């Protein structure tokens, strides 16, 4: 079996890529995709630990994370479409209505 550290390194790499995308891009849709990448990194960790401990607790948590990601994308796409309708753009730097 592949050592657990490999999966942890892979998960950390994907998580760092997600944070990089969140911090450098200004497109709101890229924000959504970067959050998806970070949730996938957490899911890799959960399933890998579930395999190495030999029970299904991690897989159950992974399924909950998956359902939460789907719900979060549905809500986020509603917010992004409202943003586009009000500002004619999906640039997060343009929407400054709630900034005081």
């Amino acid at each position, binding site marked *: 079996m592949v050592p657990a550290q490999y999966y942890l390194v892979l998960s950390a790499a994907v998580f760092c890529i997600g944070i990089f995308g969140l911090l450098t891009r200004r497109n709101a849709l890229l924000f959504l995709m970067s959050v998806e990448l970070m949730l996938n990194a957490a899911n890799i960790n959960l*399933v890998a630990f579930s395999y190495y401990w030999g029970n299904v607790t991690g897989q159950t948590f992974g399924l909950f994370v998956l359902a939460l990601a789907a719900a979060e994308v549905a809500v986020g*796409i509603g917010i992004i479409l409202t943003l586009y309708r009000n500002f004619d753009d999906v640039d997060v730097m343009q929407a400054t209505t709630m900034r005081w």
Partner: protein
Amino acid sequence: MVYETIAFALFALITVGCSLGVVLVRDIWHSALLLGGALLSVAVHYVMLQAEFVAAMQVLVYVGGVLILITFAVMLTRINPEVSST
């Protein structure tokens, strides 16, 4: 043993490469397609970790649902690519 390591390295390379493509490609539509590739290779990792149900749910929910929703958002908010990029 060594085949598992080779398969893990190959699909880890695909996962990290597609993830880097998601955050680095200028066009939002191409990055949505690369996100689909990354999610599918993560599903392959789940199969290698003997979590077949989670892998099936990954393919069904992420690639079948989340990616379709992101595709709708991309098509509904089509704007000039050089304006939207960083």
